[in-house]
């Protein structure tokens, strides 16, 4: 990393660390959402941006992860800090099965993507009928007392959740940066660019693709745990919804797939857009139905058309930073 990147990163880190000191609760909730998407975007990016495997079913891991830890807490009072590991293990196993099935039988490209959707849909329908976890009526966790900080059970004021997801986003960034600069990063990118050539250079493509899928899923499972304890409720209809999967992937696509900063910048833009469009419409007094979605759509379209590789590669070129 060069000096400019270090300065940029330090500035960002300080701002984010200090944010709860001056932000009101609205801003803090938006910042929390931004970090959530920065984190999940980073996780999805490992699979698609690095290894070239398109998943449209990451809601599966959000849901299964969230439900695993929530179930332990709800039924047995077990801390989410422990439940987290169950969530990670279940999602890792689940994704390994999905990957093994797909890669062993040569299911690739759009068919692989369809398989990821199918897994998430199956889970949605399955959990709808899973009465032990509330079924379609949902699972509710005891709402946090906002004035007491209970880190062990992830109960507390909004700032607690903010710092929790900030920590996760920071760790994810660090992990991705580490992976990208080492053997896994090189191997995944080789597979992404040309799988046949990668195999000829000694890469066991099956194993490395599975590794990308498993890391990505395990990270997303942790995001699911966060989501469950942040909102205190889980509905199969919502958490396994394909919209969730799409939300996750917009950030890295807009920001720049396969890059480190892409998912972060993309998440920032998408969060700003969602809430900014609402604010803008309110401020202008436009009372037209659908205008918010229109603004959202137009800006998204503009980015995709004018910056087909995403925002970050364009910024990096301008600032002469490495990608």
């Amino acid at each position, binding site marked *: 990393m060069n000096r400019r990147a270090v300065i940029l990163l330090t500035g960002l880190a300080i701002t984010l660390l200090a944010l709860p000191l001056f932000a009101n609760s609205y801003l803090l909730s938006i910042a929390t959402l931004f970090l959530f998407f920065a984190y999940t975007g980073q996780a999805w990016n490992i699979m698609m941006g690095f290894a070239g495997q398109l998943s449209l079913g990451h809601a599966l891991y959000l849901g299964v992860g969230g439900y695993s830890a929530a179930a332990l807490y709800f039924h047995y009072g077990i801390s989410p800090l422990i439940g987290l590991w169950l969530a990670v293990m279940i999602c890792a196993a689940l994704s390994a099965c999905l990957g093994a099935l797909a890669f062993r039988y040569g299911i690739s490209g759009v068919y692989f993507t369809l398989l990821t959707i199918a897994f998430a849909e199956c889970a949605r329908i399955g959990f709808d009928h899973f009465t032990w976890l509330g079924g379609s009526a949902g699972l509710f966790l005891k709402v946090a007392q906002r004035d007491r900080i209970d880190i062990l059970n992830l109960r507390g004021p909004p700032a607690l959740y903010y710092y929790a997801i900030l920590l996760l986003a920071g760790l994810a960034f660090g992990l991705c940066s580490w992976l990208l*600069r*080492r*053997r896994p990063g*090189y*191997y995944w*990118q*080789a597979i*992404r*660019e*040309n799988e*046949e*050539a*990668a*195999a*000829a*250079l*000694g*890469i*066991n*493509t099956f194993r490395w693709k599975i590794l990308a899928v498993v890391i990505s899923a395990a990270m997303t499972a942790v995001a699911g745990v966060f989501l469950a304890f942040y909102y205190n409720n889980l509905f199969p209809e919502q958490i396994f919804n394909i919209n969730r999967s799409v939300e996750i992937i917009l950030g890295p696509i807009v920001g720049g797939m*396969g890059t480190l900063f892409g998912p972060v910048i993309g998440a920032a833009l998408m969060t700003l857009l969602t809430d900014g469009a609402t604010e803008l419409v309110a401020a202008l007094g436009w009372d037209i139905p659908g205008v918010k979605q229109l603004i959202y759509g137009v800006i998204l379209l503009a980015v995709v058309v004018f910056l087909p590789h995403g925002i970050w590669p364009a910024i990096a070129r301008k600032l002469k930073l490495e990608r």
Partner: protein
Amino acid sequence: MNLLEVQNVEKSFRGLRAVSDVSFEVEANSIVALIGPNGAGKTTLFNLIAGALAPDNGTISFDGQPIAGLRPDQICARGIGRTFQIVKPFAGLSVLDNVTVGALQRNANVITARAVAEDILIKLGLAAKCDQPAASLTLPDRKRLEVARALATGPKLLLLDEVMAGLRPTECDEVVAILRALKQRDGMTILLIEHVMRAVMALADRVIVLHHGEIIGEGTPAEVVRQPAVVASYLGETSEP
């Protein structure tokens, strides 16, 4: 000593016999050229040796070990590096990163792998372009990149599929010099598919002629060009010098 032994190897594609009952050996530290008209089955034979395809019949052994049916990555690990006739660069990665991927096969550490890759790029005259994306290379440079990448995996045997096609005679001579140095200085063994007879005559210790999936001639370059079957089926048709 024979580094590679191919025995009675066959491969059909839906009834079409691409390779039928082919047997030959490649002696260690020699250069063997595989020639023959388009569609003769040369690339298919490479794919069989490199593990991209499994033979229907026959055995292939490398360094005394059977390798037929192993995966491409396992065969690479055994010490066979290959290039693709239709080049397959990692287009989005830099030239150096392309070669580093290969070098990681024998060097787990990225820093050493990059150093190995840099050395190879110097050897192949691509050092000046190491930071360019591979997508920006011209076809002759892409062919060199194929060779560089295969070489980076640290092979004992190199399989080169028409790496001189489309090169100008001076560029061709450069590659000939590089390959000769690989053999003489580094003890490399090379099996190459080549249409450019100028290169074949200059490089090959032995030539194998393939036609309709069968070997129809074999010998030193000087012997092969005099064999009537070879002249009739291949050399007579070709316009290459």
